[in-house]
């Protein structure tokens, strides 16, 4: 009987010890902002040394793409994001890439952008500070910010199943169109396969 009680106590203690391990390895990463909440401001430099803040684009629809120069999913989406930027440029939509990887330098991003014909600025998120604020984990992971600074859409660029295969439905295109029309995006969230952000 005493042995059974001891065994039960041991199992209970082990269970309690194991329970807190549930969750993500990236403990410092914040939770993603809720759809409809104000997207936190940032101050980051692009590869030309120009400083960008979210606040400076108040009144415009802004597309923020957590990107990577190495991740095939992110690279695969780049040409389609360039297309999106061109499509919505007349509407004043701002597209910004954000590179949060610890090992990627500004010069490497500049080189990649030149070779692949990126037409939108890529900002360097030093020490993945803004990725942590947004709770971003994946590249590509896109945030569409409405004219009022609130989050309209968060997630995959489109519904592609392979890195370089354009999806049938562009969630971001739909979200931008909805934001310009003052409507809610549908869907407002969609997960994406891709690469993890290499944090410091």
């Amino acid at each position, binding site marked *: 009987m005493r042995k059974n009680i001891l065994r039960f106590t041991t199992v209970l203690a*082990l269970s309690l*010890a*194991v329970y807190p*391990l*549930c*969750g*993500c*390895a*990236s403990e410092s990463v914040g939770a993603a902002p809720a759809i409809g909440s104000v997207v936190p401001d940032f101050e980051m430099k692009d590869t030309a040394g120009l400083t960008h803040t979210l606040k400076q684009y108040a009144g415009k629809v802004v597309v923020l793409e957590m990107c990577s120069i*190495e991740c*095939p999913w992110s690279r695969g989406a780049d040409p389609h994001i360039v297309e999106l930027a061109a499509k919505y440029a007349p509407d004043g939509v701002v597209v910004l890439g954000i590179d949060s990887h610890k090992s990627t330098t500004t010069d490497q991003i500049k080189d990649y952008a030149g070779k692949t014909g990126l037409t939108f600025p890529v900002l360097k998120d030093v020490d993945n500070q803004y990725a942590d604020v947004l709770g971003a*984990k*994946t*590249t590509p992971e896109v945030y569409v910010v409405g004219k009022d600074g609130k989050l309209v859409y968060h997630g*995959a660029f489109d519904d592609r*199943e*392979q*890195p370089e295969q354009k999806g049938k439905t562009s969630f971001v295109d739909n979200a931008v169109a909805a934001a310009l029309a003052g409507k809610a995006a549908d869907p407002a969230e969609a*997960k*994406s*396969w*891709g*690469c*993890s*952000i*290499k*944090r410091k």
Partner: protein
Amino acid sequence: MSILVLRACRAFITAVVLIGTAAGCGSGKDAAVSDWAPGSVGTVTVADIAAMVEGTQGRVLVLNFWATWCAPCVAEMPELAAFYERYGADDVVLYGLSLDAPDVLENTVKPFLKDKKIPFAVRVLAERDIEAVSRAVRAEISGALPVTLVYDRKGGLVRMWEGAITLDALDELVKPLL
């Protein structure tokens, strides 16, 4: 003496499961698990993954989502192989779930696994819906690779490790569960 009895029980249970499966009398769960033979490679549906997770209870389960195009995934493969070799398949089960395209199974995934001498079973996801995959593995995966899931013997998720994992980290996670 008690060890001999335990071994005899284990052999008996294994024999019953194998005979039941071979005779077509095994449950769907047993059939699903028996398909994940060490070193085997193929495609998998979300339903198969759910059945595998359900059917693996009784052993510690480690699932690793990866792809050949994912540099950190490729880098951690030797660590996973070493982990598998260290623990065998009696108490711990390790499976790889690949996000490579099913149509590159023969010309990319299989040669990669052969070249790296990967000893554990690997399946390429034939269905990619992240929400459905999350439900199957009982974890809110983000979609970022690599990610490794560790389950206890009762099938409870103990840890979702996002990013590259090492042999030492796996040791620390798994040892308390044995």
